[in-house]
């Protein structure tokens, strides 16, 4: 069906045809025709943010919590440069978003026109792909292709830069029928021969472990369910990266907790000592591997990943299976059943006994207090209060983020939104707004640090305007705690610039925005404060004043191996553990 319309109308139309219901954005000269087209319709809701970075993170939160593509719309020049951090964040965490940017009219491109910047040049390195659309005839195809590229394969951010004259120009709109791209065709099905070889290896394993990641979340709920099935069928222990939390339920007996720099003792030791590692949709990030030459030295490794460049990038694997982990897991479950495979029962039992010994270390334990709120305790109480509700958690970046990962137990995929790869302070509040827009009736909480929250605090105003009742749970330690911890361990306790001085009064700040503010300093009153936060109908900031000098343990110091982890009680010996070379690693 061909229809004649302007380029701006095509944008709105293509978004609707792609099933977009919400677009986060901020207007400006170069996108006014598109805003005009939005004005004339009611299906597409625009969420006005207060800073374009907020729009990008909101779109990420929206996408990650729904599995759909998040969408944002910003103007040329400063609008486009303000989204660069958000785009990079989405690239590193494989989050599908489409960002539409306005551009100066085609005949002015290259002339340093008002609010001109080379958007495709600037965003080339922080997008999965980007487009400058120079004629209206290309616009329908490019818009649909952008969604296709963002959503499929290894998901990621895509920018479509549209000059203003192209927005005004008239052309014919048709929804492209097939999305068979000329060059871009991600592979979904895994090679059956390799899958069989992987299963054979797993059946011989004596000390196996599943190491899973964000790829399982990317693949969709279906993949998480298949993963659960395979883990139960095999009886193997399972750990996950920060990005994969929730794909496997934390309450399950086979769950070892998160692995990596701040992961559990049992997860990291299982990784170090295993003989067969099954990596599903994780990318052997340096927060996971620690010292590469000491990473799981005696294991044979299977890696299932949709991106060929992830396989053998950091760690060499014996069996690399290229494909969508949903498809591959389906084949694995089926074949494991068909061949009635089973792992060596007695070897597995012995392996589990070893793991239980490690587990007995209780590596996440901390010394609680009746005087002052411990941050770990705060997260535990928050979890207890919300676990039976329909909830979603976002975080900022720092110690609070790690405590959230350790003490909040995720049972379902898509419930946990955090900035892992880029580690963007200021991610959590706008992401929470994006989640809330997608799930208006859910309880959405940003577990925040007092420093991070100030980076995108302005989005409180967005929450108020759009009646997004997000709750900001600040673990206020008056420090950039994660920085302070590194300074304590690596720089002789010289706390250069990591004290967050001149903090605002968060209760008054909440009130200034028209939100509800609560402060809690007493562990005895914490449950009450959390209950008040949950019960409040609108946005809330709970300023939870916690102990200032708590460190996040366990911790694998930079450049150390998994079995050289520091545990809480040994905190005092840490000073000498990291040598000069270790300090150079971050």
């Amino acid at each position, binding site marked *: 069906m061909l229809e004649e319309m302007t380029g701006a109308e095509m944008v709105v139309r293509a978004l609707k045809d792609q099933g977009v219901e919400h677009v986060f954005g901020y207007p400006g000269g170069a996108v006014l025709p598109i805003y005009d087209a939005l004005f004339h319709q009611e299906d597409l809701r625009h969420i006005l943010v207060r800073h374009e970075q907020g729009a990008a993170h909101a779109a990420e939160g929206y996408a990650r919590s729904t599995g759909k593509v998040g969408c944002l719309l910003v103007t040329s020049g400063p609008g486009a440069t303000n989204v660069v951090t958000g785009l990079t964040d989405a690239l590193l965490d494989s989050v599908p978003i489409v960002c539409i940017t306005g551009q100066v009219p085609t005949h002015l491109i290259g002339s340093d026109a008002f609010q001109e910047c080379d958007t495709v040049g600037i965003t080339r390195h922080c997008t999965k792909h980007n487009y400058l659309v120079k004629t209206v005839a290309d616009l329908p195809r490019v818009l649909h292709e952008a969604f296709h590229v963002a959503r499929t394969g290894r998901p990621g951010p895509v920018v479509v830069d549209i000059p203003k004259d192209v927005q005004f120009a008239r052309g014919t709109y048709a929804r492209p029928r097939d999305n068979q791209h*000329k060059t871009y065709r991600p592979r979904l099905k895994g090679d059956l021969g390799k899958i069989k070889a992987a299963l054979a290896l797993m059946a011989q394993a004596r000390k196996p472990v599943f190491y899973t990641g964000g790829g399982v979340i990317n693949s969709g709920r279906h993949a998480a369910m298949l993963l659960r099935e395979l883990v139960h069928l095999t009886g193997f222990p399972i750990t996950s990266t920060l990005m994969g939390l929730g794909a496997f339920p934390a309450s399950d007996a086979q769950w070892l907790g998160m692995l990596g720099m701040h992961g559990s003792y049992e997860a990291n030791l299982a990784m170090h000592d295993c003989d067969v590692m099954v990596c599903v949709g994780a990318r052997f990030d340096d927060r996971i591997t620690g010292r590469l030459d000491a990473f799981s030295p005696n294991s044979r490794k299977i890696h299932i990943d949709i991106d060929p*460049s992830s396989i053998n990038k950091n760690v060499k694997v014996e069996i690399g299976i290229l494909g969508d982990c949903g498809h591959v897991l389906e084949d694995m479950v089926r074949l494991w059943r068909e061949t009635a495979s089973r792992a060596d029962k007695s070897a597995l039992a012995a392996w589990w006994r070893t793991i239980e010994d490690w587990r007995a270390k209780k590596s996440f334990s901390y010394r609680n207090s009746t005087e002052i709120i411990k941050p770990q305790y705060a997260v535990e109480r928050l979890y207890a209060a919300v676990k039976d509700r329909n909830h979603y958690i976002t975080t900022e970046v720092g110690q609070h983020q790690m405590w959230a990962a350790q003490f909040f137990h995720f049972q379902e995929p898509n419930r946990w939104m955090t900035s892992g790869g880029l580690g963007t302070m200021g991610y959590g509040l706008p992401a929470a707004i994006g989640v809330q827009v997608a799930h208006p009736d859910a309880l959405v909480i940003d577990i925040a640090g007092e420093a991070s929250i100030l980076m995108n605090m302005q989005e409180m105003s967005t929450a108020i305007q759009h009646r997004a009742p997000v709750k900001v749970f600040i673990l206020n330690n008056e420090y950039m705690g994660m920085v302070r911890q590194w300074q304590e361990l690596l720089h002789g306790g010289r706390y250069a610039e990591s004290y967050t001085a001149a903090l605002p009064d968060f209760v008054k700040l909440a009130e200034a925005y028209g939100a509800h503010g609560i402060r809690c300093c007493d562990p005895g009153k914490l449950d009450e404060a959390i209950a008040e936060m949950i019960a409040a109908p609108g946005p809330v900031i709970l300023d939870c004043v916690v102990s200032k000098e708590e460190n996040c343990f366990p911790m694998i110091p930079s450049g150390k191996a998994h079995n050289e982890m520091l545990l809480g009680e040994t905190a005092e010996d840490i000073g000498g553990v990291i040598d000069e070379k270790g300090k150079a*690693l971050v």
Partner: protein
Amino acid sequence: MPDSSTSHYPAAPKVEPVARHTLAVTVDNEPGVLARIAGMFSGRGYNIESLTVSETEHASHVSRITIVTSGTAHVIEQIKSQLERLVPVHGVRDLTIEGEAIERELALVKVAGKGEHRVEALRLAAAFGARTLDATLTSFVFELTGTTDEIDRFIAMMTVVGLVEVSRTGIAAMSRGAEGM
């Protein structure tokens, strides 16, 4: 040397052999595609020793990029995977592992001089099979097609007899035999 077991670095700069590979990359000839490829190399810290681009199938907007790069086997594998995941890339072939590919470069070489140098320049050009594209009483412009080594040697010779300027195309390469890309 610190004992590697006490070092906090991954035993990183293991001296692994570095090899030179010639990659043929077919791409959709859309604006910015070269920037994407070159930017991927610089952004990820890979080498480009030579890069040539030109449209090869006008009707289907396909261009061929020939890249000569060097790295360890692991780095070369990464480079190929990273190229393949760029959206406008049709395909990547590593001509080096497919057996001895044919590689040619074209160079334009300007020399100036008088007397004995002038005679020697002409004699060398003839010996290398270079064509004379331009001649004045004091200068020549030669054209030479050959392997990179041949051209390097020719230029080295010309330096002695009065080299003024060189312009090289970079490498065009193709696998031997009947099979196409």
